[in-house]
């Protein structure tokens, strides 16, 4: 058993908080970071506008509405309209952020997203709120766990799933300044802040949050924290050193970083709050199977729907807790050729 600290190697340059000290961790929903980033984006550029489908408070567009009332439009419960009208505004030079729950946008509006945002290459940004089973008590109808799949399959689309609220703010600002259709996915429930203002963020650039050479855990969204905790526990319990990669950009994915991790670690576990089918992990597999296949395990929802419950309870039940991640890493490690 060796002691690999987050203060060593590439992970050192990430300026993370000491996530091992649970008591000191701030717990903030990623949606809050979106709200803060959006206000700042609207201040930096008056062409940044926001349109909401009757969910201003819960998608955190409320602050933008107050800060920039002339840049904010309400259209009611009309998600197809949300996309199509934003396409028109973008065609006239605006940078529209459109918000609803991910289940309804892009869930309900997918064809408009494909035709008007992607095929037509418009500068519309989707804020997909309440993604994942961690939506909790609202139940399966409101828990988007197929959205990464339906968005990453669309040409031209950027798909970003930040790991905490600080990073969500940075992603909101970065996407506001990068031309092209984009999908930003975030969650409802509080989650640990692991990054700091100093942590770098670049769309399309995966980040090594923990160094290690035995197994690479490639995670996105709020489960990056679970991956970090699982990695530390595995090091203590089994002496297996996991590299943890925050793979926040699912499209365009940082293929060189994924391949390097696979070559250096020899086994990969992907972790996402999404169906195992066709999500972030599937994209990792598509990359690896063509150039450097290694034993792989997938953490995610296994071809089923969510249900009502407490967010943490649901994450555990659907096999995305630290225990499940550790088991998957052990399996991947055991499958490595000796």
């Amino acid at each position, binding site marked *: 058993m060796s002691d690999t600290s987050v203060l060593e190697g590439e992970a050192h340059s990430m300026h993370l908080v000491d996530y091992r000290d649970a008591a000191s961790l701030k717990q903030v929903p990623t949606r809050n970071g979106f709200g803060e980033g959006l206000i700042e984006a609207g201040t930096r550029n008056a062409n940044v506008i926001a349109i909401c489908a009757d969910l201003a408070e819960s998608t955190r567009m409320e602050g933008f509405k107050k800060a920039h009332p002339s840049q904010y439009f309400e259209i009611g419960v009309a998600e197809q309209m949300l996309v199509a009208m934003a396409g*028109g505004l973008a*065609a006239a030079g605006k940078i529209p952020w459109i918000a609803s729950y991910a289940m309804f946008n892009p869930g309900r509006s997918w064809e408009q997203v494909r035709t*008007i945002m992607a095929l037509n290459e418009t500068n519309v940004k989707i804020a997909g709120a309440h993604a994942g089973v961690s939506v909790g008590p609202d139940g399966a109808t409101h828990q988007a766990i197929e959205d990464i799949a339906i968005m990453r399959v669309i040409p031209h689309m950027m798909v970003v799933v930040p790991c905490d609220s600080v990073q969500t703010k940075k992603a909101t600002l970065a996407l506001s300044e990068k031309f092209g259709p984009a999908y930003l996915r975030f969650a409802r429930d509080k989650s640990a802040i692991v990054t700091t203002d100093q942590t770098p963020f670049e769309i399309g650039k995966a980040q090594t949050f923990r160094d290690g050479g035995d197994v690479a855990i490639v995670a996105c969204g709020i489960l990056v924290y679970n991956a970090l905790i699982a990695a530390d526990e595995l090091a203590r319990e089994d002496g297996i050193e996991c590299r943890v990669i925050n793979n926040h950009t699912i499209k365009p994915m940082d293929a060189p970083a994924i391949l390097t991790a696979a070559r250096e670690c020899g086994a990969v576990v992907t972790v996402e709050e999404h169906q195992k089918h066709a999500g972030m992990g599937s994209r990792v597999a598509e990359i690896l199977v063509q150039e450097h296949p290694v034993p792989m395990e997938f953490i995610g929802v296994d071809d089923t729907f969510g249900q009502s419950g407490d967010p943490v309870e649901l994450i555990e039940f659907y096999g995305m807790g630290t225990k499940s991640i550790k088991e998957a890493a052990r399996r991947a490690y055991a499958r490595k050729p000796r």
Partner: protein
Amino acid sequence: MASLSPQRLRELREQANLVRQGIIRSLLSAGSGHSAGSLDMADIFTALYGHILHHDPKHPEMPDRDRLLLSCGHIAPVRYSAMAYAGYFPVDELLTLRKFGTRLQGHPERTRMAALETTSGPLGEGLAQGTGMALAAKADQQSWRVYVVTSDAEHQCGLHWEAVMTAAKFKLDNLMCIIDRNFIQIDGSTEDVMPLEPLAGKYRSFNWNVAECDGNDIGAFIETVERAKTVTGKPTVIIANTVPGKGISYMEGDYTWHGKPPNKEQADAALRELEAEREKILAHV
């Protein structure tokens, strides 16, 4: 805008005739495509490009141009033909319709030709995008207008009515929806497949300004548009009553021509009929 002189009206009628000939030629060349709606909208597209729109074929992305959106993208042949005869591109290019590598895709794609303004084909989406554009023009205090050509049958799409509601909310009097009211769709009469009437009443109840006209009468259409442009505080819909397949006697009123092109023999007959009509127009009959 000044009213039309008899001379100018005749020129536009001849232009519409040529646009119809372009539609027939391009559909024959393509071997597939939508005849009836394309033909019945030839007069309106000619009026738009020839008189109503503020535009410049040499500068298709001129910032203060009026925006013309074709929501029902399947009648692209009429837009392409009207654009060619308006000077956007060579008329011969119409023969590339639907062929590999063409700018004239089966359904319009803006990224291949900026003057198309949107990418369309999936129905019910044009007015929504036009609403966004008109809202942007208002927000930026721009004087350009947005015209959206829609089919009657796409009024069966829910999204279209989301746009109708939204445009009224924002009082978009710089937005005009033109309905190709030809009463046909792929499976038959609109009133059998899914009744739209009372269509004017629906729009009135959504707080729109409603006008109706003969969509195959260029003069009447232009007059209706000019009158509607003076209405403030409301978007306008023009229900343009058209005859599907207009100008080609064997197609007129027959819904089976919605989605198919003429064969060589049928195209020749259509072109002969159009040429005879053109001679009548030129002879001031």
